[in-house]
């Protein structure tokens, strides 16, 4: 049985709402008064240059960092996300760029990592294998040779697909993908982007953090741009073009290009 929610209508209230988030590390203001909406059934592309605060914002949502000020609303209710466990309990899963999977464990073991099914005190391998296979099949991740092969033997795209499948196993409502296509070839990138679209079609809210504007424009329904810790633009993807996103990313504004050259 697939663990992803069936088609849901896009609610008025965004699934996750961030309001006025501040975070500083010593004297460095990493985020200031950041607002962000992540609606269900939509892909939001989070863009920004290095150091713009993308990963800090992500980690505040994922429970790794605690914001200094501001509020996070989940399904309209204010919540505090103090740990990765809190986040998963709400239905928020984050797929980190290089840290999603443990190389020595096989696909099933990875997908259930930290949440193994247990029967009478012992690991229920058969049940986990069945559930993992069902989730992979529901996401049409079918290119792996065996779900019992160590993830070290998978290709980059397969790894990323397994990592995403791991994230959606848990009835998650929001999946955050950190640079999901970095270091992937063209075919593999396409495979991951298709998977992202399937998540959206399942009604999951997806946030994709990416440097690659091609990828962002291919999958994103909405685009949010961070510049030096401030949210400088956030709208439907159709309201942007490549040029304006780049301008927001590099100058924090658009149409008022710095005068030189």
């Amino acid at each position, binding site marked *: 049985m697939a663990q992803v929610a069936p088609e849901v209508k896009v609610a008025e209230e965004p699934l996750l709402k961030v309001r006025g988030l501040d975070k500083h590390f010593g004297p460095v203001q990493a985020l200031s008064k950041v607002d962000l909406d992540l609606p269900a059934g939509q892909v939001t592309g989070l863009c920004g240059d290095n150091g713009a605060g993308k990963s800090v914002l992500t980690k505040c949502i994922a429970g790794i960092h605690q914001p200094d000020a501001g509020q996070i609303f989940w399904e309209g209710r204010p919540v505090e996300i103090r740990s990765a466990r809190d986040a998963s309990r709400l239905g928020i899963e984050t797929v*980190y760029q290089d840290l999603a999977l443990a190389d020595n*464990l096989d696909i099933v073991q990875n997908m259930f990592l930290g949440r193994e099914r247990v029967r009478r005190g012992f690991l229920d391998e058969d049940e986990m294998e069945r559930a993992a296979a069902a989730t992979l099949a529901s996401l049409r991740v079918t290119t792996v040779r065996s779900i019992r092969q160590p993830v070290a033997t998978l290709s980059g795209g397969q790894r990323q697909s397994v990592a995403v499948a791991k994230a959606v196993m848990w009835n998650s409502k929001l999946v955050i993908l950190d640079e999901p296509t970095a270091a992937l070839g063209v075919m593999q990138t396409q495979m991951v982007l298709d998977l992202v679209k399937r998540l959206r079609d399942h009604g999951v809210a997806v946030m994709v953090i990416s440097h690659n504007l091609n990828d962002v424009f291919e999958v994103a329904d909405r685009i949010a741009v961070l510049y030096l810790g401030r949210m400088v633009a956030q709208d439907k993807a159709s309201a942007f073009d490549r040029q304006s996103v780049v301008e927001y990313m590099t100058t924090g504004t658009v149409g008022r290009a710095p005068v030189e050259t």
Partner: protein
Amino acid sequence: MTDAQMAEPAPGHAAIEAGEPYRRAWIRRLLEQLGPFLFVLVLGGALTIASPHFLTITNISAVFVQMSVIAILAVGQVMVIITAGIDLSVSSVVALSGVLSTMVVVNDHWSIPLGMAVGVLVGGGVGVINGVLVTKVHLPPFIATLGTLSAVGGIALLITNGQPIAAPTSFDVLGDGQVGPIPVPIVLMAIVAAVGWFILSRTTLGRSAYAIGSSYETARLSGIRVDRVLIAVYVIQGLLAGLGGVIVASRVVTGDPAAGVNYNLDAIAAVVIGGASLFGGEGTVIGGLIGALLMELISNGGDLLNISNFWQNFILGVVIIAAVAYDQVRRRALQSR
């Protein structure tokens, strides 16, 4: 869960279910242990031919009794090494446990089972300290346990003034006793190995240990309570070292503060010969047992064939290097696939 259910592919999952099911993957993993095991068979066969005394019930029983303590320590050590840690304090725990268990019996007239329990629990206590130093004080396991190796060894010498403690003869139950025809140390080794195998391959604790050793951050981000798992692993190792210490003391009916000096590296060697990776994430109880058996066969065979101890050390060193080199080759072949 029957095999028939396993074999039946759910509709639409054919591409995945056609792969290798868990049971066969398990056999494949066992086959990876085959290298050292074949070596054991070859060595055993050669010794059978070379010495008429080798393949006798007395000698084989002696081999298993001799390897029992190393094997028990190796079960704990493999768990620690799987988490990418190491426990160097084992030999001092063996000494302290032996000394304390005999002391409370001799000086304080505690019953022998109680004295033995004290020995085991003291080992667990050192395990708690090791685990806390590694997880809460963030010391590298090598340094933390190097510290407790010295400190605990010092305590064992201090409380005895460096003198061995003679225990009453009935203290020999664990070392020289028998369950039916089987010597107690062999029974204990079998129980420890079975429980250790179960923990590593059938429980969440074991799975978490592999994950932590494979990638600490991944394990943490996956919601594993990393500190708890690590402390549990060091405590298990401590308890087993304590048990090992009691067996050693029981065998010689003496609490010797100088006991156990060689056990440290022997246990690590057994684990490494058995295919565990010091980088973490890999290793099995069965591998550790095979490693311990191989080491004991080298020493037993050396004695039977009148090969000097010096040569035995040399051969053991070569075997350790060969085993790890073989493992490296295998690993690289796997990665380049």
